[in-house]
């Protein structure tokens, strides 16, 4: 092949760059996964001592780890539902209507995306402590997760709103007009025509919110109590006491879950682009 847009890919320097970038990005993850199968007592041990799946069993039998995992999933499911609904409403509002100070509002909605997580964590911790709006840690499960759920909704709904708004951009206005013309009220147009069009965006937004919530550490750390440990927080605390391949195993499971969901999100976005 002669001149093409990707001809630089044939250059050795470019190939080396690509190779190095890939190694830096993925070597730690691959090592983590590989050593989750290492038959060694210490997770920090980089000597291969043979293959085992014992640590997956161990992780499974670790009650406090499983509890943390259940907390994480519960928080992720509930916060995802709220974040998606809130995100969808925000997206429709920004897409459909013009109102005074709209750019200001748009900026405010996008702000949690750029605010450093540590600041959000501190501000939420202070908010819960100072306003007394916080749910006491001794409340029955899953009510005691309330603070974390509120915090997760706060930081994840702008992401959902962004994704859903992008989808709305491709909505042909004649669709709504056609439904109106056939006798539908604005309300029916919203439910019968607009929502079905939004579905891929809603799913993608929800998956994004779910993964963000599932693996969030910083904000969760600031808003969780001793009874409300989530999976990432638990892994961190385990790491401080003893490093065992159990952590590797648990992390591998988390990586897999996030990967699968991201893959689904990408797949759901693609057909819509082709339809345009």
């Amino acid at each position: 092949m002669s001149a093409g847009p990707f001809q630089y890919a044939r250059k050795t320097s470019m190939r080396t760059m690509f190779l190095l970038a890939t190694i830096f990005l993925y070597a730690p993850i691959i090592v983590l996964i590989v050593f989750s199968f290492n038959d060694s007592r210490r997770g920090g041990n980089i000597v291969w001592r043979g293959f085992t799946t014992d640590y997956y069993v161990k992780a499974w039998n670790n009650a406090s780890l499983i509890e943390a995992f259940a907390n994480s999933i519960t928080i992720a499911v509930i916060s995802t539902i709220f974040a998606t609904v809130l995100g969808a409403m925000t997206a429709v509002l920004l897409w459909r209507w013009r109102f005074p100070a709209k750019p200001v509002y748009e900026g405010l909605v996008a702000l949690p995306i750029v605010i450093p997580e540590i600041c959000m964590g501190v501000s939420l911790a202070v908010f819960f402590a100072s306003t007394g709006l916080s749910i006491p840690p001794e409340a029955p499960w899953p009510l005691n997760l309330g603070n974390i759920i509120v915090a997760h909704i706060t930081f994840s709904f702008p992401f959902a709103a962004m994704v859903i708004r992008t989808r709305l951009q491709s909505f042909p206005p004649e669709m709504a007009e056609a439904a109106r013309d056939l006798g539908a009220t604005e309300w029916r147009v919203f439910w019968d025509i607009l929502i079905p069009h939004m579905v891929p965006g809603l799913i993608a937004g929800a998956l994004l919110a779910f993964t963000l919530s599932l693996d969030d550490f910083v904000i969760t750390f600031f808003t969780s109590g001793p009874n409300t440990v989530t999976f990432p927080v638990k892994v961190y605390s385990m790491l401080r006491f003893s490093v065992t391949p159990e952590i590797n195993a648990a992390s591998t499971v988390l990586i897999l879950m996030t990967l699968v969901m991201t893959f689904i999100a990408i797949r759901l976005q693609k057909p819509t682009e082709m339809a345009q």
Partner: protein
Amino acid sequence: MSEPTLKKRALRLRDAKPIVEIRNVTKRWGSFLAVDDISLDIAEGEFFAMLGPSGCGKTTLLRMVSGFETPSEGEVRIGGEDMTWVPPNKRPVNMVFQSYAVFPHMTVRKNVAYGLEVDRVPAAEIKTRVDEALALVQLSQFADRKPDQLSGGQRQRVALARALVKKPRVLLLDEPLSALDAKLRDAMRLELVKLQQQIGVTFIMVTHDQDEAMAVADRIAVLHKGRIRQVASPETLYQRPADAFVADFIGRTNFFEPKSVRRAGAGATVETAETAALAFDRVPEGDITLSLRPEKVRIGPEAKGDVTLQARLGDVAFQGENSVVELHLPSGRAILAFVAGDAAATVGAMEEGSAIPVAWNASDMLPLARG
């Protein structure tokens, strides 16, 4: 359709009471005048076309009938009632959109049923009416398909069935054929005419394609810059255009610029660079031009007429049943002529630049106000 039935139809339509009355309607977007004080009556059962170049206001006018726009001034009456401020979902009109706007997540059947479902029509009645509508547009066997499994022409039929199933008093069509390829477009034109005659509903079609409007409509309104230039049957528009804009927009024509105009009462004697002084009985006020349709130009050794000239042959474009011939007149102006049959063969055999006699009748030249 034979000639007498055409006449009968025209007479019937003339006597029918108007279904859509547009009264002094103006639409402004800021300082831009999209529609400028238009009044128009459309008869019950008529196939009416609004024709004009893009930006002439035809779509805005249609959207004011459908209810998607409201006039800045004036009144829109449908079926004798003032509908100016009635929202689109409460008007007895339905629309076929340029992009069809078929709902992609619903099957053909669901698409067609949608308008009846929102009206809470009983399920059994919905079924029979949807079946009827699908049969009308020959889509019965595609009822359970999704729109992405249909061709452009089929999607258009879904849009038609979806609008017609509601039994509208008026069907509005916004450039309905512009997204189809040329062959299909010609076939759909005929089908639209047949369909309209079969169900007798008033059709109002917006188009920028004059061939399309001429082929389907009983009457055509020619719009330009938000104003109506002429409302007439296709024949009248072609043979007696109201002004130079209409003559130029409908079909092809040659314009001759007058050198001098000597008015006498309603008539005038007009002289151009190509023709000696010619007398016309009726000449419009103001700035005028003379229009001569290409098929009125006779060429060849036997050509006879009030005006005879020696021209030089320019390009000849063979188009099947006739040829379009470019003729360079002694004044330096080039005109077009349509020739058919033997004359076309003669011209085709001649070389470019050779001398050729050209003639036409003064009565075929129309003095028109400049648009």
